[in-house]
């Protein structure tokens, strides 16, 4: 669709200092576009938790953000270890995070549940050993 703006990011593997750069940049773009504060906040939370997950669980990956007149679609794709049991991963408090992730202030199993709460829809496709694709939609 021509009236959608697409942003693409590569999230580097294992670089904890750069984790969040894509989300930060996306948030700045949404602000420039003059979108409502509540929408920007929800997109920022979903993308940031998702981006952190790519770094701490999956060696980075690719994020595409499509900003359309009626919705914002975030696709976070990695080729990490995959999620064996998505239902379990969605439970608040479930986490396989390392100590290093916890040192960052993450890894308490709160990310996916909060992403689900903030997005209008959250879809996770994952194959163990192949990777994970998280698609989140925030409607305008």
């Amino acid at each position: 669709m021509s009236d959608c703006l697409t942003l693409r990011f590569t999230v580097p593997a294992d670089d904890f200092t750069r984790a969040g750069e894509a989300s930060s940049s996306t948030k700045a773009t949404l602000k420039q576009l003059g979108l409502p504060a509540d929408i920007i906040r929800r997109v920022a939370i979903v993308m940031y938790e998702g981006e952190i997950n790519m770094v701490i669980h999956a060696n980075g990956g690719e994020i595409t953000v499509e900003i359309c007149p009626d919705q914002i679609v975030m696709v976070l794709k990695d080729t990490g270890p995959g999620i064996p049991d998505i239902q379990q991963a969605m439970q608040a408090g479930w986490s396989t995070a390392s100590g290093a992730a916890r040192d960052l202030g993450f890894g308490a199993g709160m990310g996916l549940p909060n992403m689900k709460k903030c997005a209008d829809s959250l879809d996770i496709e994952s194959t163990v050993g192949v990777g994970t694709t998280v698609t989140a939609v925030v409607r305008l």
Partner: protein
Amino acid sequence: MLIRDIQALLGAALLCGESRLDDEVTSGFGADLMSDVLAFTDSDTLLLTGLCNLQTIRTADMLDISHIVFVRGKCPDDAMLQLARERGICVLATHYTMFKSCGLLFSAGLRGGGRDE
């Protein structure tokens, strides 16, 4: 409550964001877990935290939090302060513990800035 009053109450050092000393905040949120900050704060609130790394600043940035107090003598490094400056975030640092800092501010009238669940 004005940021400059908060600074005085906590005996805090101002590390960046001089221009924000006369900003007013009405609520505060204390946490070391950034996922909790992302899940439980609602609006522009004063963030009190003992977690001291770049993700603290990024989390604040994501939520439009403009004022951070580092507690327990935690001292942000140059990279953190540079990012905070870029994002217009005011950073204070106190030697007081989280409990004491929150208690002092609550007694002085600051209210809880998170959702209780």
